[in-house]
C-alpha cells in the first residue's frame, strides 16, 4: 500500500489543490462585501408560535414561527443587529427552518423608527457549492491524473460555450434555439472528443457516429410526435419555459442524450481499433459484428443511467401531486410525460448509435471481402 501511495500521489498537484482549496475557502467565507444584497449571520433563533396544520387531504403538518436575531455583515448597516421573522412548516416544502451560524441573504433593509427590518431571500450557499466543486475536482485530478485534467478542461470549455449559446439565444429572442442547440452539440462533441482522443481519424469517426446517432434519434422523436399528434404529451408542463416550449424541449433532448451517445460511440470505436491492432486483416463484417456486441453489452446500463436520473428528479413533485389527492395517471402525465419522451428518444439514440458506430468503424478499418 505504501508503494501504491508513492505512485499515486503527486505532491506538487496535491499542494496546489490544497492551496486553491484554502484560497477558495477564505474567499467564500469573507466575500459578503461583494454582495449587492445584505448578508447576515444568524446569532439566535427562538420559536414564537407553533401550530398544527390539517388539510383537506388528511395531511398533517406543523407551522412554526421563528424569530431570528442576526448580525449584518455588509453594506450600510454592517455589524448592526436585525430581527427577522420566518415561518416554516415542519416538512419544509417551500420554507426553511434556519438555525444558528447560518448565513442568510436578505432583501434590502429598511429602517423604521430606528429599527431595521428586512425579509429573507434565502440561504447563502456559495461556500458549500464551491467547496464541493473543489473537492470533486481534487479527487478527479489526483486519482485520474492526465485523464482527470483533460476531463476538467473539457467541462470548463464546454461551460463557456454553453454560456455563449444562451447569450446568443437571448439575442435572437429564443427563435433559433434548435439551430443553436445543434451547433452547440457539434462544438461540445468536438471539444470533448478532441480532448479524449486527440485529433485523429478515430476522433472524426466517433464524432460522426455521435452526431449521427443524436440527429437520427431526434428525427425519430419529431416524426413520432408529429404522427401521434403529441398525444399524451403536455408541452405546457415544461419547467421554467420562458420561450416556445416545443423547440426548447427538443433542444434539451439533443443536449441531454449527447453525453450518453458519445460515451457509447467512444466505447465501441475503442474496441474496434483494438481489434484492428490485434488482427490487421480483420474484415468489415467481423468488425461490424464486434461493434454490435460491445454496444449490446453497454446499452442496458447506459439507458438505465438516463432513466434513473430523469425519474429521480420528478419524485418530489410527484409526491406533492399524490398527497394532494391526484390520481397516478394525472401525476404521471403532468410530471413525467415530458421526461419520459425525452428519455425514450435518448434511449433510441443510444440504440441507433450502435449500428452507426459499428458501420463507421467497419468502413474505416475493415478490409472488404473482395479485396482478399
Amino acid at each position, binding site marked *: 500500500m505504501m508503494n501504491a501511495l508513492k505512485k499515486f500521489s503527486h505532491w506538487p498537484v496535491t499542494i496546489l489543490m490544497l492551496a486553491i482549496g484554502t484560497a477558495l475557502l477564505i474567499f467564500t467565507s469573507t466575500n459578503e462585501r461583494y454582495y449587492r444584497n445584505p448578508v447576515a449571520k444568524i446569532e439566535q433563533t427562538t420559536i414564537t408560535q407553533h401550530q398544527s396544520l390539517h388539510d383537506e387531504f388528511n395531511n398533517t403538518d406543523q407551522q412554526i414561527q421563528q424569530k431570528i436575531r442576526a448580525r449584518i455583515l455588509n453594506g450600510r448597516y454592517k455589524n448592526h443587529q436585525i430581527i427577522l421573522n420566518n415561518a416554516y412548516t415542519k416538512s419544509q416544502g*417551500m420554507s426553511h427552518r434556519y438555525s444558528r451560524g447560518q448565513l442568510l441573504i436578505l432583501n434590502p433593509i429598511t429602517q423604521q423608527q430606528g429599527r431595521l427590518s428586512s425579509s429573507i431571500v434565502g440561504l447563502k450557499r456559495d461556500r458549500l*457549492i464551491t467547496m464541493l466543486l473543489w473537492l470533486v475536482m481534487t479527487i478527479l485530478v489526483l486519482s485520474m491524473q492526465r485523464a482527470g485534467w483533460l476531463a476538467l478542461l473539457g467541462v470548463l470549455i464546454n461551460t463557456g460555450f454553453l454560456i455563449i449559446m444562451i447569450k446568443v439565444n437571448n439575442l435572437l429572442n429564443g427563435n433559433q434555439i434548435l439551430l443553436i442547440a445543434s451547433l452547440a452539440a457539434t462544438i461540445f462533441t468536438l471539444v470533448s472528443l478532441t480532448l479524449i482522443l486527440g485529433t485523429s481519424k478515430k476522433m472524426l469517426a466517433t464524432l460522426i457516429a455521435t452526431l449521427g446517432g443524436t440527429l437520427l434519434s431526434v428525427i425519430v422523436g419529431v416524426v413520432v410526435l408529429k404522427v401521434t399528434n403529441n398525444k399524451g404529451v403536455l408541452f405546457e408542463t415544461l419547467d*421554467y419555459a420562458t420561450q416556445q416550449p416545443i423547440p426548447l424541449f427538443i433542444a434539451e433532448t439533443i443536449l441531454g442524450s449527447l453525453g450518453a451517445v458519445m460515451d457509447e460511440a467512444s466505447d465501441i470505436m475503442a474496441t474496434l481499433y483494438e481489434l484492428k491492432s490485434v488482427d490487421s486483416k480483420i474484415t468489415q463484417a467481423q468488425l461490424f459484428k464486434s461493434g454490435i456486441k460491445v454496444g449490446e453489452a453497454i*446499452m442496458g446500463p447506459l439507458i438505465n443511467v438516463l432513466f434513473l436520473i430523469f425519474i*429521480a428528479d420528478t419524485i418530489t413533485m410527484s409526491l406533492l*401531486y399524490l398527497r394532494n389527492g391526484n390520481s397516478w395517471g394525472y401525476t404521471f402525465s403532468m410530471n413525467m410525460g415530458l421526461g419520459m419522451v425525452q428519455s425514450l*428518444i435518448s434511449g433510441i439514440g443510444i440504440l441507433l448509435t450502435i449500428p452507426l458506430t459499428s458501420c463507421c468503424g467497419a468502413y474505416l478499418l475493415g478490409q472488404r471481402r473482395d479485396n482478399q
Partner: protein
Amino acid sequence: MSTISVLSTILLILMLLIGHKHGWQAFLGLVINFVLLFIGIALMAFQIPPVIVLIVVGTSILAVTIFTGNDDLAVTTTSFWSSLIVLVILSGLIVLVNYHAMIQGFSNEQSDEVAGFSVQIGISFLQIATVSMIFSSLGAIAEASIAVATGLEEVLEHQQLSTTQFLLSGFHIGQQIIGTTLNTLFFGLFGSSLALFIWFSQLNYSLEQIINNQILGQALIELLMSFLGVLLIVPVTTLVLKHRQLDKQNQQ
C-alpha cells in the same frame, strides 16, 4: 396510440434487433426499474419513511441494473457489492451535504407550479430530496462499476497481479472511462437545466443569485455526487475484485 407508447415500442424493437436475447433482458431491466421506482414513490406517498424506501428500493434497482446489464456472473457479483459499498459511503455524504445546503422542496421559481397545492404534506422534504438524489446516482455508479469489473476480469485472465499492480490497472481502466462518464452526467445536466439557464439569463439573475440558487444548487450537487460515486467506484471495485479473488484462492 400515444406518443409514449409508440416511442416505447420503437425502443423495444430496436433493443431486440440489436441485442436479441440481451435486448429482452435490457428492456425487462428498464421496465422493472420503472416499476420499482413507482413502488418507491407510492410507499413514500403512503408515508413509509423514505430511509426504508431507499434501502429496499435502492438495493433492488442496483441489483436489477447490474444483473440485467451483464451476463458474466463474476463481473456482476463484484459490481453489485462494490456499488453497494459506494452507495453507503455516498449516501452518508449526500445526507450531510443536503442537510447543510437546504435544497429540498420547491423554490421561488416553482411557486407558480405549486400554487394551488397544499405543500404541508407532512413528509420531510429533506428526506425526499436526499432519497431522490441517491436514486439518481445509482445508474451511473452501476454502469461504471460494470465497466471497471469487466476490464479487470480481462486483465486477470492474462496475468497474476499484486494488489498494488491491480489497483494501478483499476485506475488505468478508470482513466479510460472517466472522461466520457463525466460527459454523460454533465451534458445530462445541460439538457435538463437548459430552460433554467435561459430563465436565469432572461430574467437577468446576478452571479450571486445564480450561485446561491436552490434549484441549480440541487442539480449541481446531484451531478457532483453521482460523479464522486463514479470516482469512488474505481478503487472500490478493484479492491472488491481482488478480495474475491483471494477468497477463491484460499478455498482452493
